[in-house]
């Protein structure tokens, strides 16, 4: 097949990947820049990383972001799993389509509107803006992602497995924890990861709903960039890119391994009498 790789395919490949990754590569490169001027190369250095860990403001923001992401994704996973399971369980009641549709709606809602409406609500109930409000806001929009992921898993779930558990003496409540939850767990975990990432990323909704003392990392970066890009920001961004890339890599390796194991098992089963 090597014959197919003409100069055209090569250039298309290079162009496509540069388009995607050149900005990130530049960012990573300049995070190791000695010079304080972002666009002028002044030799290799890791001093911005050292400085980063002395920048209390950035570290605080990172810590807040992680806390918000952890709490909001955990609560969102709980609520989203419940609604995802229930929407498939109650096969038909009046207005089921409406409810399912309403679960999806926040996915397509412009973030500005979600943020603004949440802000209005917090003001209306006179809730002081801070860590709590930004967490609630993140739960609100990430819950529907979990619900969608769990619901699509439940759609292919063999309901007779639950019936079998009940037939063997398991009460409905126990059945959920002993049988249903372990089987849909991968979907629940990916829902959690998805909402964790979404919470880490979010800038718009956080800036509407947060208050003093609860500045998230994206907000901090954004506000610093407005005063001028410093190599410190490059360094923190490089760390973020590194974390995300490692996460994706690990997830890919795990799922590859599982696929390989499954394939091997199936071959084994086919050989047996």
């Amino acid at each position: 097949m090597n014959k197919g790789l003409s100069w055209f395919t090569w250039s298309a490949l290079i162009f496509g990947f540069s388009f995607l990754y050149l900005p990130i590569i530049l960012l990573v490169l300049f995070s190791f820049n000695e010079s304080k001027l972002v666009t002028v190369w002044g030799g290799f250095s890791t001093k911005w990383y050292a400085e980063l860990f002395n920048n209390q403001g950035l570290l605080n923001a990172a810590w807040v972001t992680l806390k918000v992401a952890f709490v909001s994704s955990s609560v969102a996973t709980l609520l989203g799993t419940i609604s995802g399971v229930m929407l498939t369980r109650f096969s038909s009641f009046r207005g089921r389509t409406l409810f399912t549709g309403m679960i999806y709606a926040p996915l397509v809602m412009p973030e500005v509107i979600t943020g603004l409406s949440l802000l209005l609500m917090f003001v209306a109930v006179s809730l002081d803006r801070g860590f709590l409000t930004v967490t609630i806001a993140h739960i609100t929009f990430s819950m529907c992602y979990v619900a969608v992921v769990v619901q699509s898993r439940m759609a292919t779930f063999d309901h007779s497995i639950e019936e079998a558990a009940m037939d063997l003496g398991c009460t409905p409540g126990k059945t959920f924890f002993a049988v249903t939850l372990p089987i849909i767990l991968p979907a629940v975990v990916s829902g959690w990861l998805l909402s964790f990432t979404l919470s880490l990323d979010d800038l718009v909704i956080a800036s509407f709903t947060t208050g003093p003392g609860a500045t998230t990392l994206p907000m901090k970066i954004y506000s610093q960039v407005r005063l001028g890009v410093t190599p410190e920001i490059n360094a923190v961004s490089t760390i973020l890119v590194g974390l995300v890339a490692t996460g994706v890599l690990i997830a890919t390796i795990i799922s590859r391994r599982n696929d390989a194991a499954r394939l091997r098992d199936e071959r084994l089963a086919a050989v047996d009498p």
Partner: protein
Amino acid sequence: MAGSGHEVRKKWDPWNDPQEKPHVQLLSVSKRFGDFTAVDNIALDIYKGEFFSLLGPSGCGKTTLLRMLAGFEQPSQGQILLEGSDMAGVPPYRRPVNMMFQSYALFPHMSVESNIAFGLKQDKAPKGEIAQRVEEVLDLVQLSSFAKRKPHQLSGGQRQRVALARALVKKPKMLLLDEPLGALDKKLREQTQFELMNIQEQLGITFVIVTHDQEEAMTVSTRIAVMDHGRIVQVATPTEIYEYPNSRYVAGFIGDVNIIEGRVSEVGESHLNIVSEQSGCGIRARHAVDAPVGATVWIALRPEKLVISVDAPADTTTNCMAGEVWDIGYLGNLSIYHIKLDSGIMVTTAQTNRTRDVERPITWEDRVYLTWTPDAGIVLGQ
């Protein structure tokens, strides 16, 4: 019951014994889903130790009936009694009944061992007892060496046996099987039928099986209930169902059959004389239905009970239809002939190929005569 008057010998037939108490009793049970009646006013007695089949086409209500026995559906009307006690409102997890599901419904995240132990753990049985009983039942289904495997590491036939073991390990009073062999290929299915029968006989548990495969029902059952549109059409032993069907529906559903229409011309002591334009002759048949002279009746003739010959019978009073060979199917052990009668209707007959060479083989377009004894035809009213 339809067959009770006939001399069918049975070693074991509690259903004919008025002293015997039924194990399960269905008293005018109905189940409606909205406007649709899935099960329509069914009364049925099943006895302890029976291998009972619910047989019918898909949508006849057999699975709904099974699910009501398991407790997944509640009857809209009527009562289900298990050993005399009413099962109304008893949820599936409190019934001394286990079910084997069509999809097997094995827990994918548990090993074979844990799958089987699951039911015993729910009862909080002591650990030693659980281990012992799991081992016993694994031995019974010959899967002892697969205890540590996960369901996806097993072949279809092995999964089927795990499902069976899991349903048997709690020693239920009754085992319900929903199309248990439907997912297996033909050869494995036949082999498994006999295994199921052996296990049932060994344990003495009442088995109720749902199937749409009439051969399977005939092979395994002590009795069969043939269902249609939520009703039971006939309940009888496999032999009685085949030889003495009570309706054209049952005759047609179980095995092949030729149905000939006629009119009663004379009612004798033990036999009826029937005039049939379709067959082109007068038919003498054993008295089985209450039909007056002039009533329209149908004669059901099994293909293997017709004798095919190129010579007309010497005795003109013999039941005989004449026609032309339309098609021949050679199956090795059998030959199937499709005969077009003079009246235009098609009749099927099957002959065993007893010898390897035949002097004068019957071939296409031969004029042939089909004869049968008065006992071979079944007279049906409806």
